[in-house]
């Protein structure tokens, strides 16, 4: 019998602790499927952050290192320097990457570290129970902005992808979304491209993945998808912000596949 679909070997069979409707599961699977399709699972090292995805190392079936809050890019730097031929990625949320870990992510990009960061932006702290993140939208209610985020008190949300794109060492920067099946397929293509660029050792790669948090947003999963579309995408526009030359990229990827 011909197998037309099977569970990716990139994920373990462990039940996740994620809430129903959470998009972490989708993001995990896209990354791990991409690595599997590129035959890289046995050559990959991932770094999981502090936040809801602190247990990503249980679900992602590759060598994994857990990081302290915000420090994943520094840890990835150390790992990649010792294992330069492995594919190395960090998986970080918005509190981890855009707040406590800004120093580490900016300077990993600045050094042009040859790893890839997958940045899960759901505009809120999930694991700690729904506090304001640097990416929380103006007016968005969280447990630390009970009247909605005020620009006067908290400033405007940080656009990390745009910030990273200004850094010379970052060679690939793109923002994608998980709000619909078509955007999920698009996201996977971008994830694959980011990994291909890492294999060419051109510099730092960054994929921002707009995600939902139905539990802390206080919404049903489908409503959360619609909220993301209506509110987040206008402020965090989707698309590629930076990419190395297409021709060179496709050449080198083909070379690797033929090995």
């Amino acid at each position: 019998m011909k197998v037309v679909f099977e569970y990716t070997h990139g994920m373990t069979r462990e039940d996740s602790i994620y809430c129903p409707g959470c998009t972490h599961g989708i993001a995990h699977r896209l990354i791990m499927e991409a690595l599997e399709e590129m035959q890289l699972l046995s050559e990959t090292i991932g770094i999981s952050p502090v936040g809801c995805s602190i247990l990503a190392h249980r679900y992602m079936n590759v060598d994994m290192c857990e990081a302290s809050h915000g420090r994943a890019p520094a840890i990835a730097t150390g790992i990649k320097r010792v294992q330069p031929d492995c594919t190395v990625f960090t998986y970080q949320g918005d509190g981890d990457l855009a707040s406590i870990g800004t120093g580490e992510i900016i300077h990993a990009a600045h050094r042009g570290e040859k790893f890839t960061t997958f940045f899960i932006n759901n505009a809120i702290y999930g694991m700690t129970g729904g506090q304001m993140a640097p990416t929380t939208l103006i007016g968005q209610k969280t447990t630390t902005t009970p009247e909605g985020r005020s620009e006067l008190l908290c400033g405007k949300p940080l656009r990390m992808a745009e910030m990273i794109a200004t850094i010379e060492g970052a060679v690939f920067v793109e923002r994608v979304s998980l709000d619909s099946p078509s955007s999920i397929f698009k996201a996977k293509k971008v994830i694959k491209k980011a990994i291909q660029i890492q294999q060419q050792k051109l510099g730092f790669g960054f994929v921002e993945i707009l995600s939902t948090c139905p539990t802390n947003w206080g919404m049903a999963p489908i409503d959360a998808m619609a909220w993301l579309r209506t509110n987040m995408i206008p402020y965090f526009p989707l698309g590629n912000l930076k990419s190395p030359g297409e021709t060179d990229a496709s050449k080198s990827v083909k070379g690797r596949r033929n090995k």
Partner: protein
Amino acid sequence: MNEKVLMKGNEAFAEAAIRNDCKYYFGYPITPQNEIPEYMARELPKAGGVFVQAESELAAIHMAYGAAAAGGRVLISSSSPGIALMQEGFSFLCSAEMPCVIINVSRGGPGIGTILPGQADYYQATKGGGNGDYHLIVLAPASIQESIMLIGKAFELTDSYRNPVMILVDGMIGQMMEPVTMPARHSGTRVEKPWALTGTKGQRTHNVVKSVYLKAEELEAWNWHLLKKYDQIKTNEVRYETQDLENASIIFVAYGTTSRIVKEAMAMLADEGIKTGLIRPISLWPYPYEAFTEIPSSVTSVICVELSQGQMIDDVKIGLNGKLPVSYLGRFGGSVISAEEVVNEAKKRLGMI
């Protein structure tokens, strides 16, 4: 190169690490240890290693964590306020059992304090500083030659126990020059690292380096594992030196730079016919409490000499267990005690002045 050469402390530390096959160094500039990263930037790549200047001490220790997790032989260094920033990482390294050698060329504090030498990081080094139940193995050399020897030992210990090891010196030892003999370059006593993150290569299930245990029973079991290891280290890795304990009337307790000043004072006292002895802890954790059982009955009091407001004295009291009176003698804030001050304190304790 086994001939005697004149070397500055910090440069000798870096060269000693390279001779012991250290391949990865992550650092951030801070005085009085800048010659370590500068030497590593120049010499480590020539030895086939990697030098990275981190954006902060916080990043440096986490780069070290990553490099250790990936199986690398890692050195980091800093000085007091920078070491304070690294404490978060120390706790993680201990829990995840990542091998790493750390050099603290300590200075006067608190706060920015001064770049002049100090021994006020004793609590920070030996009693934690980071969160949770953990211990660094802490070694305190008193000369550049001894530092070279202990750096070699530190790489051996960190690999065999899978626990970070700190070399605690002060700015005096880091900045001064002494004639030293370097060991030949060697690959060290290497251990297998089946836990390292290398990619599974399709040969094994995935490795995970972590310190998170959400369930109480899992975390308690992990703490039991660590506690048993710490007990083993306490049994096997106590290091100290004693000098002239026999027939002494006073015993000094001092480590590092201070122990050298005390030795000078002891010679001055001996010239006046006053017999004194020294206990010099070399391992500050595990602390050599058993050294205090060697104190003879001739001793009437103990003086703890340190360049702090009195931190090691707590361990001296534990070691003495109430058997003898102990007094503190020290300078701090970048000031260094003189042999004359030590002589006077001994005479006071003996009722001679």
